[in-house]
């Protein structure tokens, strides 16, 4: 008992008091800023392993970006990844960063379905579905529940059964073998229900885009309520994205 109390005391205060303003420590490859410096646009775009870099004007699509930092390494004056973790949004186009832009990524409030904030602003339970990912997004989602990030303090948690969930959060590029299980899990959630794509793999397929072993048809028939970019998405990106979606 005494031992337990000692351990308890030694932990001090671990929780992050305000996740809305918290910074990721040290270097973090978050929302990039692209300068207006003139470069060979084709050479710049060719550096990207996933085709996330567009030309005329130069842009980076965070829905495809794996945050590998290769473009910054090869063109250090053209692009810089800032430590801004707030990258989630509900409109796919908003993940595209154009040259010369340096403004926060925000949600389009007018595009949020009205029932989301009406029903889920005080409590949100999600059923997470892994579909062909590498397990790193799962590791970070588990970290959102630890005593430091403590997502539960906002009434947001991961439910064991889709029957108790308000929607699905998908990780991974959606393998063909998981396509049916994902559809069934979504169908098992009572309405209203949301769809969240967590991580670049889920948003675009990432490095696996175009692989014959994927089946992304789920996304043809269901609207996405939140895109959370990252490889994997940082817990702060996940938490702030979910809060932005569900409350003022």
């Amino acid at each position, binding site marked *: 008992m005494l031992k337990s109390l000692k351990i308890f005391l030694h932990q001090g205060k671990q929780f992050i008091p305000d996740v809305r303003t918290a910074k990721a420590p040290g270097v973090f490859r978050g929302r990039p800023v692209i300068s207006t410096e003139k470069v060979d646009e084709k050479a710049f775009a060719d550096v990207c392993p996933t085709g996330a870099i567009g030309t005329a004007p130069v842009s980076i699509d965070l829905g495809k970006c794996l945050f590998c930092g290769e473009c910054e390494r090869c063109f250090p004056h053209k692009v810089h990844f800032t430590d801004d973790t707030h990258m989630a949004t509900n409109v796919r186009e908003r993940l595209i960063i154009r040259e010369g832009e340096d403004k926060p990524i925000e949600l389009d409030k007018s595009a949020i379905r009205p029932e989301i904030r009406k029903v889920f602003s005080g409590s949100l339970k999600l059923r997470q579905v892994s579909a062909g990912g590498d397990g790193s997004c799962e590791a970070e989602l588990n970290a959102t529940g630890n005593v430091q990030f403590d997502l539960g303090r906002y009434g947001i948690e991961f439910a064991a059964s889709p029957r108790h969930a308000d929607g699905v959060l998908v990780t991974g590029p959606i393998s063909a073998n998981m396509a049916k299980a994902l559809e069934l899990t979504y169908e098992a959630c009572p309405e209203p229900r949301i769809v969240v794509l967590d991580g670049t793999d889920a948003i675009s397929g990432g490095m*696996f885009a175009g692989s014959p*072993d994927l089946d992304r048809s789920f996304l043809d028939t269901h609207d996405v309520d939140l895109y959370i970019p990252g490889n994997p998405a940082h817990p702060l990106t996940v938490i702030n994205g979910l809060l932005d979606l569900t409350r003022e």
Partner: protein
Amino acid sequence: MNTNILHITNGSRVSVAEIPLMDYESFRATTLELMGDKARHCVSYFAYPNASALRLMMCIADDAAHDILVYACDVEKGATLTSAAADCLALERYEREIHENWGLEFAGHPWYKPVRDFMPGKYKFYEMEGEELHEVGVGPVHAGVIEPGHFRFICNGEDVLHLEIQLGWQHRGVEHLMLEKKRLIERVLLAEGIAGDTSVSHSTAFATVWESLCGFQPSKEVLWARTLASELERMANHTGDLGAICGDVAYQLGAAVYGRLRTPIVNFSQRWCGNRLGKGNVRPAYAPYAFTEELRQQLLSDLAAYERDFLEMCDKIQHFPSVLSRLDRTGIVKTEQAESIGAVGMAAKCAGVCRDTRASHPYALYGGLNVEPVVKSSGDVLARTELRIDEVKQSLAIVRALLEQMPSFDGQMRSAGTPAADSFAIALTEGWRGEICHCAITGADGELVAYKVKDPSFHNWMALALAVRGNEISDFPICNKSFNLSYCGHDL
């Protein structure tokens, strides 16, 4: 035995022409004879298309001689071969994989079950007759935030008689894309994405294979950075697993403390390379993120704070009867079982089988660190818990030793050059789960014609299936957590 076998060391390259070819009967006989020695185990066995035929490549590691034995065999497409797995269980998943990927038949194989390509809903699971028996199906979508797999239990009351595990749900075509994507950065990212929690060890294996194909010798600081990153990866995952084990036996203090102790380690990785899981930290030929004196001081102070709280928590759980009673003699893997299925890493070391690439086939800077593998004999959940505790302590010592001999970094981008034509390269690394093996073969133009990945989970899922036999089904979660195997690493 065919004495004409090529002996190579970990991380080396040979010309494909040097690899001895034999007919299938001597290939099989040689394999069975070599595998009869307990110091040897199969690290990779795969097929690839070679002209009009298929070539079978066998790579057997000899832990006593510290080398890898390589030989090959050409067979017709669609051929029916005599199964070697029928006489050597450790080969059974390799044969199933070759059958599934290339259509070869292995007559007499003990259990011709799909590895990844099972067409959900079509495969018929193993069945047992009996009025008193019932089946429990779990997954692919599980209760926690975890990857997908299907578990089919056959139980008598609460007792598990048999567990069948069906994987493949995460299959996304890693090996196929390795050949299709031609740019190095694409391949590096594929390697990082084989198992996200082991991205350092998988990308180290890829980088080693690539450098070896190119005949490039990386400099000391590159190897130093890989060694350090790999030990930090081990510490972070072991710490997280200890928290998860505590959580599964409903010991909340342990779950919370170990859960939060993982954070300083992954946050340090972010300070160093910008990613909490070490993605981006390993690249062929150079170290992309310089390790500075400031980082050294940060890590030393992070480790001092970590160690105090970690040891205090370990002391508590290792003397806490209500935790120990759930771990002790639960989910036992016997030594003979671990040997027969070719278990590696934690699953092997906990059952008294000393298999640790850092000691037997050292790579990066491990050769100079003299790692003494942690080996436990009881094979139960407690052994897998204590092994993690001991390995974290060992990693702390390794990391501190490395920090004593910190090299200087120039942060320059370098290229390894281009891969040699008609070559074969192999790299073994010791991820926190166990041995990782990557093999690559180039064609006449120096392009990759085969890339084979083997994650430790490829062998170790069978260890979990054996461990739960005779246990109560309610102990399955703790057994599963004690192995914490990779779905994506297996499914590729």
